[in-house]
């Protein structure tokens, strides 16, 4: 039997890799006397694990998939707890000249038009799904030598983009933590379409009776508490000069 | 008790469809020394391996103590006999471990193993060889270890496949004396495959000649060596002078 003193949280690698989760959990564990086990995996896999009842909570960023997950009765209590944003990064010389362009859609069009290299994650992650949505909105079908899919996490994808002097869509948090390893600059940012909210969802205890519902609620409550918000707001400020995530409901 | 330690009935053996032994009917009387003689490649070693239950005959039967071999007393039978191979195959361990092996698998106590092994090594003139690695021994030394390995077991039936081919005269004498001694003293049935006519003559009570996969003559050693009935045996025996 699973120990009730454990809470299993499946989440995307980007959140785990940033180190935010670690800080949050350390603080939570002190108060709640419960251990939170983090399984870092892609959004797709996290949702799959939750469907199978192999975790108590998921923390992901793929609004479409999240909604479906709740609609199909696998999850309850979906809460958007924080956000950051996506940015388009690229080589400093900006061959497609997207810097200062108005809107992300024109930016992508410029890249397509120039056939400037673009590296996509291609792994059905939240980021990848957002990228696909953007191409769709732009009415473009990215195809050809210039568009390549890595099928890897955000970090490795940034490294590949850097080596190949290519554009890429990334979340700001991962970009900041990789900044020193790569030679890519943020070339486009701040569009409504680049808003990136993270949600936490409890696995439906009616489907999986063993789910640690009570502790799960406690964890969610902690995340949306003032203390939780403060931790999210402060995280990374010192190291990167700006916060990596922003709590929702400020 | 059945007078025959082993009898075979139409024992045959093929390898890849080639018949090596053809309907061998052999009677090995208890307590005697039997010589199996024949040219190289005739099947002497194969015969010993069959009798020692190391290989299955293609057809035919082997009777021990007058009873056909039953699958479930294979181990017990096996432990009543031992074969010294033509080319000694020793384990890659020390001389002591090699000689002790058969006693260890019989779960004898350490004390008695130590004693028996020491004695056997003394008999084969390898007194200070206990800790040497068997792999590095000379040809004759290996052969003597193999003989000691079998001797310590005091089997009811002892099969010897060219047991002295790698030995010098002194050691040949020692081993032959030993064979005669254990045969007389403990009534151990001995079966020797050999091409050394001198040795067969010196040791054997009974002799069996193999030729072309069949027994061509068999009987009292004395008679066969002095007045063989088969021409081929005669030729073979006369060949001894060039040995």
């Amino acid at each position, binding site marked *: *039997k*699973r120990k009730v003193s454990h809470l*299993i949280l499946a989440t995307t*690698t980007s959140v785990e*890799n940033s180190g935010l989760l*670690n800080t949050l959990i350390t603080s939570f564990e002190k108060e709640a006397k419960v251990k939170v*086990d*983090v*399984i*870092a*995996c892609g959004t797709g896999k996290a949702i799959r694990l939750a469907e*199978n*009842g*192999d975790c108590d909570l998921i923390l992901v960023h793929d609004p479409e998939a999240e909604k479906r997950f709740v609609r199909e009765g696998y999850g309850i209590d979906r809460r958007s707890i924080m956000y950051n944003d996506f940015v388009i990064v690229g080589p400093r010389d900006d061959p497609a000249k997207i810097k200062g362009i108005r809107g992300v859609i024109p930016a992508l069009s410029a890249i397509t038009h120039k056939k400037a290299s673009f590296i996509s994650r291609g792994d059905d992650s939240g980021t990848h799904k957002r990228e696909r949505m953007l191409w769709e909105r732009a009415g473009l079908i990215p195809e050809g030598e210039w568009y390549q899919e890595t099928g890897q*996490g955000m*970090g*490795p994808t940034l*490294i590949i983009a850097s080596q190949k002097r290519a554009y890429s869509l990334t979340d700001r948090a991962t970009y900041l*933590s*990789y900044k020193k*390893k790569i030679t890519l600059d943020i070339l486009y940012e701040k569009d409504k379409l680049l808003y990136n909210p993270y949600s936490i969802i409890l696995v439906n205890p009616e489907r*999986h009776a*063993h789910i640690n519902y009570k502790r799960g609620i406690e964890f969610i409550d902690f995340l949306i508490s003032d203390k939780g918000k403060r931790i999210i707001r402060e995280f990374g400020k010192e190291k990167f000069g700006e916060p990596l995530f922003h709590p929702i409901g400020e | 008790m059945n007078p025959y330690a082993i009898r075979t009935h139409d024992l045959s053996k093929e390898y890849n469809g080639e018949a090596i032994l053809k309907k061998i009917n052999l009677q090995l009387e208890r307590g005697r020394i039997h010589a199996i003689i024949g040219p190289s490649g005739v099947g002497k070693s194969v015969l010993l*391996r069959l009798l*020692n*239950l*190391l290989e299955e005959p293609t057809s035919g039967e082997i009777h021990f103590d007058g009873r056909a071999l039953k699958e479930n007393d294979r*181990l017990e039978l*096996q*432990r009543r006999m*031992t*074969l010294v*191979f033509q*080319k000694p*195959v*020793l*384990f*890659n*361990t020390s001389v002591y471990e090699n000689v002790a*092996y*058969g006693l260890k*698998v*019989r779960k004898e106590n350490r004390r008695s193993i130590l004693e028996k092994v020491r004695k056997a090594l003394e008999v084969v003139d390898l007194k200070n060889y206990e800790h040497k*690695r068997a792999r590095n021994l000379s040809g004759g030394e290996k052969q003597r270890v193999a003989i000691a*390995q*079998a001797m310590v*077991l005091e089997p009811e039936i002892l099969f010897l496949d060219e047991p002295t081919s790698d030995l010098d005269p002194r050691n040949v004498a020692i081993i032959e004396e030993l064979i005669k001694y254990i045969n007389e003293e403990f009534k151990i049935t001995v079966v020797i495959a050999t091409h050394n006519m001198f040795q067969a003559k010196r040791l054997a009570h009974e002799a069996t000649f193999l030729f072309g996969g069949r027994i061509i003559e068999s009987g009292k050693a004395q008679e066969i060596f002095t007045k063989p009935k088969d021409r081929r045996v005669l030729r073979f025996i006369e060949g001894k002078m060039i040995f």
Partner: protein
Amino acid sequence: MDYILAGLKEALQLLLSFDRETYTIIFLSLRISGTAVLLASCLGIPLGALVGLHRFPGRGVITTILNTCFALPTVVVGLFIYLFLSHRGPLGMLGLLYTPGAMIIAQTILATPIIGALSLVAVKSVDPAITKSAISLGATRIQTTLAVLREARVAILAALIVGFGRVITEIGAAMIVGGNIKGTTRVMSTAIALETGKGKFELALALGIILLTIAFLINAGLYYLQRIRE
């Protein structure tokens, strides 16, 4: 080059700071992989000896299957076991998912055919006359097998080393069934993958260097033991 030097420095620092987390990871790795190799030997060596020493119909097929298992992707093994241990799976009630137990199961399954296949080759390389000699000296079937294994000891030891290397470095299965949970199921290989994913190459290299050092010490010990026993 700086990376590598930085990695070496980091490795030393990690070890000398007596960082509890690092040591937890190291010992967990050794415990899980050691246990798995032990269990896999208990299954694999007899299996290899059985197939290697006896002729029976289907022997070729078994040999081929064992050899095929070298190409068993660890992710696939992980998935399989996950499907069994998942709450929806047949063994879900055991609650083994995300525990070292699950990792031991996965690694045992990975190592068994490897140790089996290499043991098979090992016993096949032994002079067949050894078998006959042992039987003739009165050994039972099991004793005969043991005698052959003793002759093949160098190659059997190599089989264990290969098995150990396979499981202590594998990531796929460990991630899926262990979950790489800090303090519970995070082992060296998954920690290395994690740090690499985070872009902390120095730390990943440092852990890699530690893993190799441990492996080197184990191998040196085995080599030395083997030498003095000969």
